[in-house]
């Protein structure tokens, strides 16, 4: 059976151009970027070029880009590394975030609360998943040192008002971190326009390789390492650099700069076709997240009377890869913390299906998906019919 991959927010196929860019660094240009000899210098230079292409995509300068092992590590480095820096610890122990962050942010904040004596405010969101700016403004205290709010949500796709957060913070000495893992490639991003001090990126969500990420750290922002070892990445992230991965991330960013806008437009059109198709043919469906301020690839839908996992297993049997919530919570049974924060009733939240499109998605795939989904929902509702949910 042909695979129809509609789970691009979980991960993306690596672009063949990216693979081509990476390949020489496995077997020919394999030097350790810390080595002084020509093989090492070659690796170091390739990494520098990648750093430039990542930086230029988000309006940063290359020396503000720190490569890591992925989005999760970048979130941890930003939050643990900033809050744990001796100078910042002395300045204060209050952190503000939102209730709909990725677990990499939420669990890191909870860890700081439990084991490092920090105080964390988790701001609520409205029914569209947009952070409550009044609550955020009101929660700023004298000892607030850090605000971490994601740029786009991974489950419902809502884009958060980072620029307004910067306006609220003004020039208080509070760092703003944003997890832009789901936003990269889905919107134009400029760290200066957004006014953020740190930004988390991950390669595998933008047709780059898994296991590579970056943290943008604005010059002058005090962030200590969370791991210790060699002096790599200007003493912020030790360990032999994943040169092929970093080169691949650089290439992926180059492709986004080249093709990103066109892809976005196409994907948004297909996403709208999908949502409208489903809405037209299936009753009792709602679209989660903001109706317009959302990333192009995301369609998050709740089907009353269906359970999300059952939906996605049936879609899977028809070759369609989808998700209910985020991949990393698929092992848990809790319904989505994001939908809960948005006020979606829990019995509705159980029926969530996330379809996330990509640059390879076709109109035929979308039409097939609408057809399949229509009959799958019918079938599942048939099994649960008389339960009246």
């Amino acid at each position, binding site marked *: 059976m042909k695979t129809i991959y509609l789970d691009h927010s979980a991960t993306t196929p690596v672009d063949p151009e990216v693979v081509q860019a990476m390949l020489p660094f496995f077997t020919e240009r394999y030097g350790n970027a810390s080595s002084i000899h020509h093989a090492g210098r070659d690796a170091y230079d390739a990494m520098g070029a990648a750093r430039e292409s990542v930086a230029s995509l988000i309006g940063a300068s290359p020396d503000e880009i720190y490569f890591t092992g992925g989005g999760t590590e970048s979130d941890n480095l930003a939050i643990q590394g900033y809050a744990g820096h001796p100078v910042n610890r002395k300045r204060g122990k209050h952190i503000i975030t939102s209730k709909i962050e990725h677990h990499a942010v939420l669990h890191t904040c909870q860890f700081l609360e439990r084991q490092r004596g920090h105080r964390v405010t988790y701001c609520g969101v409205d029914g569209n998943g947009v952070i409550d700016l009044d609550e955020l403004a009101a929660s700023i205290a004298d000892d607030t040192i850090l605000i971490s709010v994601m740029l786009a949500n991974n489950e419902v796709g809502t884009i958060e008002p980072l620029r307004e957060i910067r306006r609220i913070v003004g020039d208080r000495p509070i760092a703003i971190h944003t997890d832009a893992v789901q936003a990269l490639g889905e919107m134009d991003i400029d760290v200066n326009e957004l006014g953020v001090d740190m930004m988390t990126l991950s390669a595998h969500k933008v047709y780059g390789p898994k296991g590579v990420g970056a943290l943008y750290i604005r010059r002058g922002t005090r962030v200590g390492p969370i791991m210790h070892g060699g002096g790599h990445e200007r003493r912020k992230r030790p360990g032999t650099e994943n040169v092929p991965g970093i080169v691949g991330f650089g290439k992926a960013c180059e492709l986004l700069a080249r093709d990103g806008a066109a892809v976005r437009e196409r994907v948004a059109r297909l996403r709208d076709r999908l949502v409208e198709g489903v809405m037209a043919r299936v009753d009792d469906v709602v679209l989660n997240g903001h109706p317009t301020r959302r990333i192009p690839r995301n369609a998050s839908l709740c089907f009353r*009377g*269906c*359970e*999300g*996992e*059952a939906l996605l*297993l*049936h879609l899977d*049997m028809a070759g369609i890869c989808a998700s209910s919530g985020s991949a990393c919570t*698929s*092992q*848990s*049974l809790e*319904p989505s913390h994001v939908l809960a924060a948005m006020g979606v009733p*829990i*019995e509705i939240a*159980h029926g969530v299906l996330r379809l996330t499109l990509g640059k390879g998605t076709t109109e035929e795939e979308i039409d097939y998906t609408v057809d399949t989904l229509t009959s799958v929902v019918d079938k599942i509702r*048939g*099994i*649960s*019919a*008389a*339960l009246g*949910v």
Partner: protein
Amino acid sequence: MAIYTEKVMEHIASPRNVGVLEDADGVGTVGNPVCGDMMKIYIKVNGDRIDDIRFQTFGCGAAIATSSILTELAKGKSLDEAMAITRDTVARELGGLPAQKMHCSNLAADGLHEAIRDYQARREGQE
């Protein structure tokens, strides 16, 4: 991730005995929609035997598969034999279930026991 055995997937794809028995002798309802798993088991009893059985389930793959296989296991059994079917029996028949599904979604045996108790209560009411 690794999740369900082939047997489970097969039951999810083609659940057996889905639906309502209009003239059921006993009905068992377990779970609640807030937990994401809810199940209704209908039985028709003839003498001491479960002659027919149907289920309706709102829930994840495990909830559907356990309901489905339970109906297969229970059909034709005596009430005592049916009462001896446990969650473990069901999980074993399916070739195992993921740990996190064992306790939350594996409700079918409870539903059957409820249905049998309902049948017995109705009979006692008649006596």
